[in-house]
């Protein structure tokens, strides 16, 4: 469980987070959304103790981040940074992914087994002996992900996982994230990508100018056009469409394209049956 209680944070006197209160239960799936500079990255850096609150506290499974080292916290909370180039340094992908396991002092045998397993899962097996610098952007991003997931953290936090990814990679990423979540891990993603959130269906926390603007299910939040725009987001297209067809009885909270399809289909069918 991740509990954020009355969190304030300042970078040298410049307050960027104001009174944040969040409780994230084990196994929850959360998307933190908000404009550039809202404080999303700053907030998640508190989850493994990289940043300590200026005021208030953050508890990870009941332990205050002030009382634990980053190394011990990051075994529970795996934080994947936005830019893989900020962390890749090893000669091979295998070594890269093994790095955190070595830091945590696992025996070599366990390391080999876990690394191979995670490379397999993320479609990276064939690159085990390749230099991570030779890979494409999307692949480098997966290596960064693997290097965190390998130690099997209970809570996973991903900063902007979809940036620079194409449609197919996003699709794979979505499946993978959802799968991790159904296996019981807490998943927290930070993202601007409204359509990606609609496909993943997490609970959404809207952060704007360092404060929490709203919190709720994805369809509840993302169908509130006014709210969404206040966080510098653009509502999902389908939501906008449904909302402009509201007078015909469509539900503006329908954001998913397949649900929209069924709704329109049903409507057309009933029309036909009425005329018959």
């Amino acid at each position, binding site marked *: 469980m991740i509990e954020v209680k009355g969190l304030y944070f300042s970078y*040298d*006197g410049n307050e960027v987070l104001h009174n944040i209160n969040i409780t994230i239960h084990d196994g929850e799936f959360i998307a933190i959304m908000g404009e550039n500079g809202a404080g999303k990255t700053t907030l998640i*850096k508190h989850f*493994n103790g*990289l940043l300590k609150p200026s005021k208030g506290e953050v508890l990870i499974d009941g332990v205050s981040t002030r009382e634990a*080292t*980053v*190394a011990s916290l*990051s*075994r529970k909370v*795996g*934080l994947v*940074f936005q*830019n893989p*180039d*900020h*962390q*890749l*340094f090893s000669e091979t992908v295998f070594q890269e992914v093994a*790095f*955190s396991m070595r*830091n*945590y002092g696992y025996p070599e045998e366990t390391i080999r087994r876990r690394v191979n397993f995670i490379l397999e899962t993320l479609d990276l097996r064939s690159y085990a002996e390749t230099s991570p*610098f030779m890979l494409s952007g999307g692949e480098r991003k997966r290596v960064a992900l693997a*290097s*965190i997931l390998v*130690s099997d953290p209970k809570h996973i936090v991903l900063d902007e996982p979809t940036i620079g990814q194409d449609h197919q990679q996003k699709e794979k990423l979505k499946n993978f994230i959802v799968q991790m979540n159904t296996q019981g891990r807490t998943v927290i993603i930070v993202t601007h990508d409204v359509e990606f959130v609609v496909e993943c269906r997490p609970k959404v926390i809207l952060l704007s100018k360092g404060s929490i603007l709203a919190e709720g299910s994805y369809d509840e939040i993302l169908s509130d056009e006014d709210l969404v725009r206040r966080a510098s987001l653009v509502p999902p297209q389908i939501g906008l469409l449904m909302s402009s067809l509201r007078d015909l009885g469509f539900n503006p909270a329908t954001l998913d394209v397949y649900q929209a399809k069924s709704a329109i289909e049903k409507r057309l069918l009933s029309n036909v049956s009425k005329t018959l």
Partner: protein
Amino acid sequence: MSLKLFEGFRFTGKRTPIHRMDPRPKLLIASSIFLLSILFTNIIVLLILLIAQLPLIYLAKSLRRWSNSLRGGAVLATLIFIMNFLTGSTLVFSLSMTLRFLVLISAFSLFFLTTSPDDLGLVLERLHLPYTLSFTFTTAVRLVPTVALEAQTIVDAQRSRGLELDRGNIIERLRRHIPILIPLIVSAIRRSTELAEALESRAFGSCENRESLITLSMKWTDYFVAIATIIILLVGIFVRLWIPLPSLDESIRLPSIWV
């Protein structure tokens, strides 16, 4: 600490009379203070030199950053004091040396805090340095904060993978910095390629005699400040050479058995 010291020298684009001043009189002020503090060992003069800067710093709305740079220099200042005092200098002399150091930090912090690297570049151009050289210099100055921020992100990313930088003996610690250094170098290379591409795309270096949009121009206030500074400097030199100043009790020092 180190980052704090650096913060005290980083330009911030405030709109104050001091920021708006032409860089040349500012450079003159900083150099004059430098010169005077070297000329005098008298603690009262050094104190005056430090205090005289306060109104300027206040006008530049940079008190917090300025005090950061002084605090950043505090460790070194303490060291200077201890070294002087332990090696047999009087208390007052040791204090003077410490003060001299602080005066220097303060003067240059004031200059860099209020002078945009762009303006500095223009000064360098005026000195007839080749444009590419002054451009390289200003770009380097400008990139420092960006790279510092990036270094922080890299450290954070690696610590999130269980890297503990401050464990083990000195060799072990150095070795633990490899995962920081490599990404830093890789991103530096990537950044310089991107910068070079962007520069090419903006016709950099395609024309010999470029005219800058902004040119340095001294307003009457700038001339006034420059002349006043020169007068003060001359008076200072005159005093130093011909007028004996009263000095504080010079006798307190560590008993020689200590030394």
